[in-house]
Each structure stands twice: as C-alpha cells, then as structure tokens.
C-alpha cells in the first residue's frame, strides 16, 4: 500500500533545498542543508534542541530569508521573503502555538483572512458547508463548527489549525510539533490526519521529538544535528537506535546506555514496554 518505490525515481520533488545556510550574528544556525519533499510523502525532521529545526521551518514559512544555497519549489528557484509569499506559493505552516482566535467559531477561524464574500458581505453558508466538506475529508471529529474554538479539546484545536492550512489548497504542509501537547487518543487522531494529508497528495514536513510518532507516520526521516544534515533515512529500513545515534551524534550516548540497562531487566517488563510503545 505505502510507497515502496524510491520516490525520486518517479516524481519531481515539490520542495528541494540545496546547501541552505543561515546565520544569526555569530551563530551558524544552519549549514549546507539538503532536503527534498515529494508529493504524497511525509518527511519527518528530527534533531535535538538547537539543531536548527525551527529555523528551517521559519525559512520555509517565509519568516526569515535564508543566507546561502538554493531553494527550489516546483522546479523554480525561489527566495522566500514574507509569510504571504510563502503561502501564495503553496507552503502552509502550522506553528506550534496554532494561532487560533479563541473567541471566534470554527468556521471563522478556518476562513480567517480568506473569507468568502458574496455581495460585499460574508457568505456564512458557503463557508460553513465548505468547512464541513473539508472536515469530512479529513474525517475530523468536530461536533459543531459554530462553537467558539475555546470550547474544543487540544486535538480538535490542532485539527482546526491543520484544516485551516488546507483552505488555500497548498502543495506542502509544514507541521511544527503537532502532537507535543496532546493525549494518546488526540495524538492518534492527528497522526490519522497526517496520513490523510499524504493520501490527498500533499507533501508533509513534520517536526517531532516523538520517535514513536515519526516511525508511525513518516516515510523518510531527515536528521539535523548542530545545524547540519546528519543523514536521511527511509523509516522502514532504519531502527530507532540508528535515528537516535544520528540525532545525538554517537552510538554510545545516554539513550543507548539506558536501552542497554533495560535489556538486563526481566523479559516480561520489556515486552510490556515495547507493546505499549508500538503504534
């Protein structure tokens, strides 16, 4: 069912970064980053704190322009100078803080800044039925689109934020830690949502600290370490330990030591833990 063929052989990437660098004063935040995102593919971007994940997302969202290297979108080289330009190209970003207006209902939030106008006034009916259409496509569980966003759960708010990014029909969706603040069930819902984005043919770039989420939903994993590429892996061919090693830069690190210590525990405890951790 899922992509077994190397995507590079069949399709052109939507987004392609070559040698992208960014400095903030004396700090080299990103150095020579290469990254490709293909349509219908989820790429996870992982790395420790300070690895440059957020900087990369901000470059793609048009918040900071990059200093060196080339950024190719749909085959054309682009320089992203503003969020509006980035959105206009078809790059939708869902930031970690979601940026929803709590006092407005779901429909108003979905169409905020892109309201459908009919005869000079808001076309509430068209917006409401389009909202339902979109939420149904995502199989999102929102009981009513006429309640204030403040009344929704964390997962539902994340759903609204992701659904909103799809209003402009983007080519690629950037998600900044979408499951960070969510419970087990809500996390599963958001992961389902990400799979549906992939099924619809969007490219997805997902930042996450949660390796279980990454392994559950991503096709490829790009690891950043101290602002540099530290490997791109196909999820089905890479183990948890290999990713961790790439993130931390060593095979002998805190995480592997901990894993080794656990291996000495009685078998049934380890079994229970791995079952609980598996998706």
């Amino acid at each position, binding site marked *: 069912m899922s992509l077994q063929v190397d995507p590079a052989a069949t399709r052109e990437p939507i987004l392609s970064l070559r040698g992208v660098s960014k400095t903030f004063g004396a700090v080299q935040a990103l150095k020579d980053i290469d990254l490709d995102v293909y349509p219908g593919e989820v790429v996870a971007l992982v790395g420790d704190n300070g690895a440059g994940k957020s900087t990369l997302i901000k470059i793609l969202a048009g918040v900071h322009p990059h200093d060196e290297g080339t950024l190719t979108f749909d085959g054309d080289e682009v320089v992203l100078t503003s969020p509006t330009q980035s959105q206009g190209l078809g790059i939708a970003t869902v930031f970690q803080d979601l940026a929803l207006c709590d006092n407005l209902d779901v429909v*108003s939030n979905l169409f905020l800044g892109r309201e459908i106008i009919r005869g000079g006034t*808001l076309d509430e009916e068209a917006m*409401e039925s389009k909202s339902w259409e979109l939420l149904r496509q995502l199989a999102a569980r929102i009981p009513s689109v006429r309640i204030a966003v403040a009344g929704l759960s964390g997962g539902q708010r994340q759903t609204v934020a992701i659904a909103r990014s799809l209003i402009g029909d983007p080519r690629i969706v950037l998600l900044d830690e979408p499951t960070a603040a969510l419970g087990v069930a809500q996390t599963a819902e958001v992961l389902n949502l990400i799979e549906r984005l992939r099924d619809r043919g969007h490219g997805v770039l997902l930042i996450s600290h949660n390796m279980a989420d990454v392994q559950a939903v991503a096709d490829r994993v790009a690891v950043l370490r101290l602002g540099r590429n530290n490997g791109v892996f196909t999820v089905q061919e890479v183990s948890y330990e290999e990713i961790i090693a790439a993130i931390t830069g060593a095979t002998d690190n805190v995480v592997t030591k901990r894993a080794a210590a656990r291996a000495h525990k009685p078998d049934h405890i380890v079994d229970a833990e791995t079952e609980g951790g598996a998706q």
Partner: protein
Amino acid sequence: MTDTQHNKIQREVETGTLSQTAADLQDERLIRSEGLGGAVRAFFGRVRRGDLGQLPVIIGLVVIWAIFTILNPTFLSADNLSNLVQEMTPVGILSLGIVLVLLLGQIDLSVGSVSGLASAVVGVLAVQLGLPYLVAILAGMAVGVAIGLLYGFLFIRFGVPSFVITLAGLLGFVGIQLWILGANGSINIPFQSWFTQFAFAWFLPPWLAYVLVLLAGLGILYGDLSRSRRRHHAGLSSTPLSLTLIKAITLVVVLGFVAWYFSTSRGTGVMFTLFVVLVVLMDFLLMRTRWGRSIYAVGGNVEAARRAGIRVNGVYLSVFMLCSFFAAVGGILQTAYLQSANSQSGTGDVNLDAIAAAVIGGTSLFGGRGRAWSALLGIIVIFSITSGLNLLNLNSAARYVITAIVLLLAVIVDSLSRRSRAAHGQA
C-alpha cells in the same frame, strides 16, 4: 492499513445512513435542537453556560425601570421617556465608538474631550465666523477623523498603549477646546437654526415612525428567510419558520408600541432615530463584513490575525478613526441639543458615561466580545438612572454612587460569565 480501511468503511456507512440529516447536525455527540422547542432549549443552555449576551443588561433595565416607576410613576410617562432617549443620544453615539475600541481590546479615554473640541469648532465656525452649518459640521467631523488618525499612527508607529495616548488626548484636546473658544468660553447657537431644530424639535410624524417599524420587521423577515433558504440550499440546518415569524412579529409589536407611546407625547425624535440607525449599521458591519470579522479576530488574538494575513495596522487605524469620528458626531449633536458650545462641553462625566455604557451594555473589557447594541442598551440604563433620580429630586452625589454600583455590577457579570464560560470550556 486495515485500521484506516475500517475507518473509511465506517465513515461511508455513517454518511450513507445519515445523509438525510443536515450537514451540521450529523455528529452523534451533538445535542439536537431542532424546531421551536429546540431553539428555546438552546437559548437556556447558552445562558447556563455563561454565554449571556445582552441578557443581563435587559434584566437590569427592567429592574431599574420597575424601581423608579414604583418610587415615582412619572418615570414611565411618555414625556419623560421620549425626553430620555433624546437626551442620551449624543453620549450614546460616543459609546458606539467606545464599543469598537473595546472590541479590539483597546480603550479611548478621550472621547469626551474630542466631542468638546468638535463642539467648539462647530460653534466658532458657524456662529463667530458665520459659515454655513453644514460646513461647520463637516469641519467638526474632520477634526474627529484627524484625531483618530493621529491616535492610530501613534499606536502603530510607536506601540504606545492606547490608554496612555488617549489620556494625553483627554488633557490636550480640552486645552485646544478652551483656546479655540477664547476668553468668553461660551458660544450660543441660535435656537431658530435648522441645526438646533434638528436635535431639539424634529420628531418623526407618527405614520413615518410606523412605516419605519414595519420596514424593520420586513427587513428581519426577509433576512432570516433568505438565510434559511441559502442554508437549506447548502444542506445545512435552518431556523424554523415559526421562530422567524415570532421574532419578526414580536419586533414589530414592541417597536410599534414604543412608536405609538412616544406619539402620545412629542413623538420619536429624529436624532434618536439617527442613533438607532447608526447602531443597526455598525452591527451589520461588525457581523456581516470582512472588516467586522477582522476586528473580532484582532480583539481575540492579534498574532493569529496577523498570521492569517489580516492587515492588523489598518484595523487599528480604522477603529481609532471611527471612534473619534463618532465622538465628534456626538459632540456636534450635543451642541445642537444644548444650543451652546462652551468650556463645559464634553467634560464632567461624559467620558465615563460613554465608557460605562459600553461595558454595562455587555461589551467585554477584555476584547473580542460584544455587539454594537450594547451602546444603545447601556446608555439607556445610565440615563434611566439619571432621569429617575432627577425625578426623585436626588442630587448628583447619589447619581454618581448609583451609576458606580451599576457599572461594578456589569463588570462583575462580565467576569463571572467569563469564568462560567471557562468552566464550560467556552472561554
């Protein structure tokens, strides 16, 4: 994979079996509220959750009127009430501007001073310089717009809190008002001019008042019916016809009664009618246009509004401008009503009455919540208190204290309903 397939099948089954239901009522967790009874239940549900809207101020108004009527039956007389609504109109228009800035989560403390300055400008231009009233009025309004633009510019450019900018305006524009008025400090407007007649002596003929009431009813009916039709067309649930009819008929009966009652005295004032029209217009702009939506968005979450591509600075600028514009209009009407522009215009409790009216009427001080109607309802409350206490021959000392208590009650209701919304997950 099997899991997603299973979900897909389940989804198809759900949409297949539930396709008869309107698109917005398909979720099984939703409490159904169809038909007339459902609408009533939904209303009480909203109130219980703390989504009070204009309900507290309406209840408060009934209580205040009942108390004053018991103490002095003259309070409810047609003469007193038709006077009351004329008298409150200038401050009410100031309050309409305050509602707008409060929706953004900002404040304008200088509406009184701006109204006084506009009043002085009109007085000087029309009476001392002998220009036509229309020119003087337009100049007064232009002064308001210019002040609003200045506030907006200072706010956007330097990020100074609106509280401080308008506090400076409060002092500064009183100074300019006194300077323009010169040594006398008072300019009388001739009573015979159309300008004062408009505010003081123009009343709608009863037939015109009834026609307007009927038009309002038909407008509501047409708006609701066409919305129901569009919603039905879009496959969404729609308001039951019975509810629409009840709403329209109630409105016509209530407004018709008011118009009839006023007609037993001097009639419905043109100035008051203008105020109501402005409130309806602002409510329409706030609820039904992209500009209005962006005001609520900025008041709710500035950063989210900015990222959604709303030109936040433009919203601030337009609202500060409109607020000062309404302040100038209110000041000009006050000048006409009192037939005088003097150093006292716009001073005293005008500022606080205007701000208190907006809050009493149900506009949240925290931004993002409120309707244009709160200006009208709030100002009726404040002037009812003034009028009732005057009839009881109580001095302004008692009036200040009672207005303060009502204002406190209103703010407490706002905070409590906020807390209740939070408890019900609606904050």
